[in-house]
C-alpha cells in the first residue's frame, strides 16, 4: 500500500492573463520521498512550485497538505505545514553573517524582540549540525561561493522543521563536487523523513537522486513514474516531445596559416600560469576544469576584465595588448559571462534594448540619436534568427526563460560579429531543448569562421561541441584532448583526479 501523501495536488489549473500555465496538473509527494519535477522552461514547473509555496493562487483544483485541504493557500500556511522553498536567488541577506541568516526565520517565528549573539550562534550551530557541513558561521554571506550560500539557505529551511523542501534548479550554479555534496545532503534528509522536491533540467542528476519523477510539458503532467521507468532518452522525449540526438561535433575546420587567437605563456598572478594555446578559425575549443582551476579567470583576462600580467596574446598573428574591456572589444573579442543575470543583461529592459546594447552605435541615426523603432526592428530580427521564444521584442528580458535570456546575450555578441567569442558556462541554467539549439547556433557561427572558446565544467557539453578540449588545473593547462577521441568517463576521471 502506498503511504498517504504528505502533499497532494489534484487537477490544478492556472491561467495567467488568458495563457494557460497549468492544465489539470497532479502532483503528490510522500513523506521522505525524493521527487523530481522536470520539464523545460515554460512547462509550468515554476508556476507549480509557486502554487505549493502559496505565492501564486491556483484557479481550480485541490491542494491537500498533511491531510488538510486548502482552497486558497497562503505563504504562511505553507510554512506552517512544513513546506520550505529554496528559490534560485536563495533570499539571503548578503550583508549579514551565515549565522544571522540562518537564525533569522527562527528568531522571527519566536516573536522575539531582543536577540543575543549567543542565541544566534546556538541556532546556527543547530542548523549546521543538522546539515552536517562545516561553514564559518561568522563569515559574511556576500563573501561565500554560490554552493555555500545554498547550504545556508538549506540550513535555514531545516530549522523551520521542514517536512518538504522544494529546491528550484538547485544545481544550476554548482560544480560537480558541490552537486555531489548536495545530493548527499538530500539523501540524509530522507533518512529523517524530510521529503525533497527537486526541480531540475540537468538530466544526469535527476536520474541519480530521484525516486519518483514527474515530467511536465506545456502545463500538463506527461509522466509520473518511478525512476526505474525512465532512461535518459525517454526523459528527454517526455520533456521535449521530440527526440534529440546528442550528435558529436564532426566538422573539423581546416587549419589556415595563422591561428585566430594564440596565447603564449599567459599568466596572471594568483589566477593562472603559463597558458599557451591556439584557436583556429572555425574551431570550437573547450576549456574545462573545476571551480578555482583558473578557467573563469582566463576568460576574464581575455576580455580585459582582469588583465593578464605576463605573456602575450596574438589575434590573427598580431600581438595585442588587452588591458580593458574596451581593448578586448576593439580587437574583436566577445565574452558571454557565466552569470548572465547580473553581468550580462539589463533585466528590466526590453529584449530589443538588450540585444542592441552592443551595437547601439551602428543603429543610431544622425545626431547620434537612437530611434526606438530601429532598435525594435533589430530585436524582432534577432528573435527570428535565433528563434527566441518571446511575444515581442519589447518584453523585458526578466520575463524570458533562461534559455531565451541566453540567446539574447548571444544575439548581442553575434551582432557585433567578433572574431573570437568566449563563452563561460554557455548553457548554465538552460533546458535541454534550448541547450541543443544554442549549441547549434555556436556550431553555425564556427562554420562561418568565428573562433569559439567554451569555458565549462559540463563534460557532455564540451565533449559534444568542441573540436579540442583543454583541461585546466591549478591555473595551468595540464592536458589536451581530441574531442572525437575521448569519452565522458575518461574526461570526468581526469577532471576530478
Amino acid at each position: 500500500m502506498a503511504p498517504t501523501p504528505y502533499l497532494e495536488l489534484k487537477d490544478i489549473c492556472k491561467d495567467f492573463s488568458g495563457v494557460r500555465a497549468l492544465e489539470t496538473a497532479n502532483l503528490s509527494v510522500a513523506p521522505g520521498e525524493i521527487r523530481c519535477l522536470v520539464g523545460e522552461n515554460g512547462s509550468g514547473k515554476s508556476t507549480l512550485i509557486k502554487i505549493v509555496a502559496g505565492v501564486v493562487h491556483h484557479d481550480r483544483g485541490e491542494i491537500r497538505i498533511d491531510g488538510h485541504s486548502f482552497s486558497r493557500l497562503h505563504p504562511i500556511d505553507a510554512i506552517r505545514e512544513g513546506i520550505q522553498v529554496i528559490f534560485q536567488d536563495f533570499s539571503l541577506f548578503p550583508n549579514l553573517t551565515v549565522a544571522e541568516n540562518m537564525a533569522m526565520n527562527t528568531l522571527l517565528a519566536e516573536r522575539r524582540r531582543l536577540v543575543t549573539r549567543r542565541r544566534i550562534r546556538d541556532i546556527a550551530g543547530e542548523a549546521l549540525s543538522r546539515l552536517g557541513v562545516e561553514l564559518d558561521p561568522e563569515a559574511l554571506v556576500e563573501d561565500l561561493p554560490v554552493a555555500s550560500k545554498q547550504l545556508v539557505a538549506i540550513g535555514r529551511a531545516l530549522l523551520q522543521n521542514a517536512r518538504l523542501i522544494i529546491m528550484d534548479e538547485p544545481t544550476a550554479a554548482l560544480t560537480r563536487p558541490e552537486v555531489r555534496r548536495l545530493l548527499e545532503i538530500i539523501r540524509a534528509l530522507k533518512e529523517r523523513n524530510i521529503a525533497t522536491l527537486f526541480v531540475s533540467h540537468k538530466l544526469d542528476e535527476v536520474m541519480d537522486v530521484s525516486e519518483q519523477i514527474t515530467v511536465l510539458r506545456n502545463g500538463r503532467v506527461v509522466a509520473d513514474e518511478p525512476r526505474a521507468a525512465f532512461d535518459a532518452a525517454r526523459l528527454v522525449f517526455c520533456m521535449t516531445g521530440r527526440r534529440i540526438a546528442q550528435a558529436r561535433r564532426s566538422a573539423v575546420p581546416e587549419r589556415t596559416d595563422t591561428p585566430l587567437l594564440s596565447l603564449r605563456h599567459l599568466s596572471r598572478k594568483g589566477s593562472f600560469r603559463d597558458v599557451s594555446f591556439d584557436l583556429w578559425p572555425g574551431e570550437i575549443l573547450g576549456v574545462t576544469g573545476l571551480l578555482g582551476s583558473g578557467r573563469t579567470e582566463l576568460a576574464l583576462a581575455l576580455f580585459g576584465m582582469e588583465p593578464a600580467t605576463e605573456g602575450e596574446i596574438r589575434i590573427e598573428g598580431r600581438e595585442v595588448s588587452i588591458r580593458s574591456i574596451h581593448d578586448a572589444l576593439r580587437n574583436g573579442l566577445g565574452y558571454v559571462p557565466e552569470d548572465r543575470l547580473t553581468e550580462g543583461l539589463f533585466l528590466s529592459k526590453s529584449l530589443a534594448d538588450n540585444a542592441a546594447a552592443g551595437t547601439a552605435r551602428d543603429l543610431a541615426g544622425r545626431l547620434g540619436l537612437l530611434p526606438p523603432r530601429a532598435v525594435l526592428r533589430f530585436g524582432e530580427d534577432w528573435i527570428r534568427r535565433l528563434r527566441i521564444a518571446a511575444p515581442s521584442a519589447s518584453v523585458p528580458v526578466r520575463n524570458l526563460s533562461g534559455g531565451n535570456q541566453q540567446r539574447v546575450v548571444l544575439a548581442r555578441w553575434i551582432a557585433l560579429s567578433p572574431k573570437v567569442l568566449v563563452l563561460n558556462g554557455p548553457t548554465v541554467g538552460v533546458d535541454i531543448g534550448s541547450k541543443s539549439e544554442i549549441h547549434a547556433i555556436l556550431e553555425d557561427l564556427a562554420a562561418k569562421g568565428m573562433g569559439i572558446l567554451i569555458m565549462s565544467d559540463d563534460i557532455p557539453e564540451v565533449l559534444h561541441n568542441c573540436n579540442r578540449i583543454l583541461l585546466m588545473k591549478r591555473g595551468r593547462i595540464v592536458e589536451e584532448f581530441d574531442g572525437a577521441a575521448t569519452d565522458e568517463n575518461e574526461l570526468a576521471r581526469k577532471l576530478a583526479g
Partner: protein
Amino acid sequence: MPSRWNMLWKKNEFLVGLTILGLCLFVGSVNSAFWSLPNLFDLLRSSVVLGIFALGALVVIVSGGIDVSFTAVAVLSMYITTKLLLAWGYAGPFLWICLLSCSIGLCLGLVNALFISAFRLPTLIVTLGTMSAFRGFLLAFIGSNHISVLPQAMVAFSQWDLLRGRTPDGVLYSLPGAVLFLFGAALFTWALLRYSMLGRGIYALGGDAVAAERVGFSLSRIQFFIYGYVGVLAGLGGIIHTSLSRMANPFDLVGTEMNVLAAVVLGGARITGGHGSVPGTLLGVGLVVIMNNSLILLGVPSYWQRVAVGLLLLAGTAAPILLARTRKRPHAGEEERS
C-alpha cells in the same frame, strides 16, 4: 589563514581610528594647543549635535535609504517648541522641552515614512521634497526671526557642565552636560541595531528588501520606525543645538546634512545599505569634527575646510574599496583542494 592583524585591517573602524590618530598627531605637532583640555572639550561640544544627527542618518543608511530632511525637521521642531514655550511662559524642567521637540520631530518623520512606505517612493526624493516643504512651512507660517531670549530651562541647560576649569591664562573652559545626551542616544542606537529584532530587520531590509519580506519582516513597520526615529533624534538635536547656541535661528542647521552624511559614510556605512555601525559612525563624526576644528588651529581659511571635508570623504570611501579590490580573487587552486 586570516590572522588577527589582517582581520583588524579589514575593519573600517580601525582604519578610521588610525586616520584620526594620524590627524591628531599631525595637528598636535603643528599647534600644541590641540592637545589641551579646553580643545578636547571643544571637540566634544561640537560633536554633540552632529553626532545625534549622524546616529539617525546611520539607521536610515543601514536600511538602504537616505534622509536629507532631518536638519529641516530639527529646525522646525526646535523653533515650534521654543515659540510655544515662550507663548506659554513655560518654566518647568528641560526634559519636557526635549520631549516636546522630539514629538514634533516624530510627527514630521512619520510624514516621511508615510510617503516612503505607503506610496513606495524613493527615499531621496521624498526627503528632498519634505526638506524643502518643512523649511518653507517654517519660514512662511511659523516665523523667520531669531529668538534670542529662550525659556529659562534651555538657558540653564546650556550652563550645565560636567567639568569646569580655568587655563593658566585665565580662560574658562567646560565640558557641557549635553554630551551625555549624545552618549545616551549612541548607546540606545547601538543596542537597538545590535540586540533587537527590529535592528536585525533594519539590516535585513538594507541587505535585501525582497528577502526581508519573504522571511516575514513587516517592511512598512520597520520603515515607519526608522523615519520616526530619525525624526525624534532630529528633534532632540535641534533643541540641544538651540540651547547650546542660546538662540533659536530658523536659518540654522539646514545645509549641514551633507556634513552629517559624510561622517556616517566615513564611519563605514555603505550608501547602498546593509552595512554600518554606531562605533564607526561616532569615529566618523570625530573625524569630521577634528578635521574642521584642526583646520582652524592650523589657520586654514574656513572655505577651505569644505574642500578638505570633501576630499576626506572621497579618500575615506575610496580607500576601503581599493583595498577590497586588491584581495578580491583568492589564489587559484586553493579552493580546489578543499
